[in-house]
């Protein structure tokens, strides 16, 4: 019964967040600017009847199965299928899986190599990956590639979602930060487990270190590791926006950013003008947020299923 209540609470939490985002996005806009010589006077007051009208019209369209139109009078569904389903979702799934895989490998390597020089170097590298800002690495990667191209390295396009290699690069780069985060959680957990008596007994019986690590240490820390799956997913989504912005990828996160008043901002990062008021695309914001929320929700569900299964197995 407790588990069902728990699952229900998760669903309600996500639903409440979705409703909050919807209500915020539907808030009336329409700032009035009166420009003087160099000074601009601005007036804004919320008209509650307009707000109620916005909510009514949103619900009316929703119940008719209509998600609304974007700034180009095209159905929002087109934006979702192109930017989210075709471009960003494969990257999110790929980066998430790669983060788990890389995190596990890096965490195990840091643990297995501790005390050795190479272990110290790799743990410092992984530590700096999660300690330093993501955009620092993104700009370093770009500068490095530009320099390589200048030196005559065979050039390829790494901007945009045009080829399969762009997706692979995106998955790898977006997964760097979350995998370092996971590795730094796994390594101390394995270390904690190492000092327990059953490990000492297993080793004294002559079982190879690999079997001890895999069958005993790993199996016993798995339940604590899976509790971070959702955080990894949130990190992947968060990094995706900065990645798409810096690598000129027209994906769902970038589209959502543009919909939030940055439509004037070109893909090249031009200056934003205040005409953003008319470019605030409410339906795009609501439904792209919903897509990201769904992804986060699935990660949460996977985490709770895996965690309860592993807890049951261990107990």
């Amino acid at each position: 019964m407790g588990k069902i209540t728990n699952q229900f609470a998760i669903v309600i939490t996500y639903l409440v967040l979705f409703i909050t985002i919807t209500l915020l996005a539907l808030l009336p806009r329409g700032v009035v600017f009166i420009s003087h010589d160099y000074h601009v006077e601005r007036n804004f007051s919320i008209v509650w009847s307009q707000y109620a009208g916005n909510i009514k019209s949103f619900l009316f369209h929703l119940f008719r199965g209509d998600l609304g139109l974007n700034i180009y009078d095209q159905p929002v569904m087109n934006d979702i299928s192109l930017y989210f389903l075709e471009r960003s979702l494969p990257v999110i799934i790929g980066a998430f899986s790669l983060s788990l895989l890389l995190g596990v490998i890096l965490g195990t390597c840091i643990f297995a190599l501790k005390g050795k020089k190479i272990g110290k170097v790799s743990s410092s590298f992984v530590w700096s990956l999660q300690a330093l800002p993501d955009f620092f690495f993104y700009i370093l990667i770009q500068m490095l590639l530009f320099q390589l191209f200048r030196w005559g390295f065979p050039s390829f396009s790494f901007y945009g979602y045009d080829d399969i290699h762009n997706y692979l690069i995106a998955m790898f780069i977006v997964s760097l930060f979350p995998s370092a985060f996971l590795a730094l959680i796994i390594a101390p957990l394995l270390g904690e487990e190492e000092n327990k008596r059953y490990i000492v007994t297993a080793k004294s019986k002559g079982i190879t270190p690999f079997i001890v690590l895999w069958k005993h240490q790993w199996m016993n820390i798995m339940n604590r590791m899976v509790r971070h799956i959702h955080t990894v997913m949130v990190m992947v989504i968060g990094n995706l926006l900065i990645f798409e912005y810096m690598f000129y990828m027209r994906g769902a996160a970038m589209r959502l950013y543009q919909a939030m008043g940055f439509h004037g901002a070109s893909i090249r990062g031009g200056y934003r003008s205040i005409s953003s008021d008319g470019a605030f695309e409410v339906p795009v914001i609501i439904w792209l947020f919903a897509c990201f929320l769904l992804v986060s929700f699935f990660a949460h569900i996977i985490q709770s299923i895996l965690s309860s299964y592993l807890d049951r197995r261990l107990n």
Partner: protein
Amino acid sequence: MKQPLYLISTFCSSLLLLFCFLLPFFYSNEIQEIIFINTEEGERLFPPYGPSPQHWLGTDIIGRDLFHQLVIYGKNTLIVVFTIVVLRFSIALCIGFVVKNKKGVLYWLMEKAHHYLSALPILFLVILFMNLAIVEVSPWRMIFIIAFIVLIEVGRLSYIFSNEIHSYYQQPYYEASKMIGSTFWLRLRKYDIRNIGPSIVILFMLELSKVMLLLGQLGFLSMFISQEYFTMEAGPVEVQNRFGTWGSMLADTRDHIRDEFWIPLAPIGAITFAMFTFQLCAESLKKYFSNLKS
């Protein structure tokens, strides 16, 4: 102080503080714009200029020296980051103490608020909030935004604090102290600070680094904490940043990565150095407190 980690952390944090709080006294608050320079061959050179002995880190697109900007804006950046973290910790600690028994409606609410706000990246929610019409044009925009950034993570921190406080409140030595009638202040000094003090200090440093990252990301996406509107000769109304931080220096610099890489690299370097310092301090403190225990 033989440990290299302690030495490096002290050096980096002193350097950061000197750079942000002492160096501005030697620089003017007005940053000069260079429209063009004449070369010896009689050519006119327009900005941006690359790193040179005159401009150590180069200049931006309108000819403002980047090093000068870093010096002037460093103080603002650190003050904003510290204000957000101090406010966040004060509120989270109070809530953590109130719900330390992990029971009741308040604890339930706090736990749900934590789950509710950690469902999506904070960056997304902050961008949505900053672009609401009411926040966009409000004279209190800066206060609204800082309050939002503070509150959005209070649930997570108070959840951590309540768990920490709860775990040592169950210890026999704490219960014994209460039974023999010790005062609240004595318990606060002898047990509370000693038990959760180290985690608070370490978390504080990590939180500084997180907020610095958020400010950098917001800056990259041209989101200003405080902005003003202006128009030139009845042209379109434009938005301009009013509160210079290292983050705001990154606004609209994406296009320069290829040819004028120093423009984004200077503020990114400063932000990275600050985050590195905070993380190093957290690591040093972790090491120091674990040495104390053993």
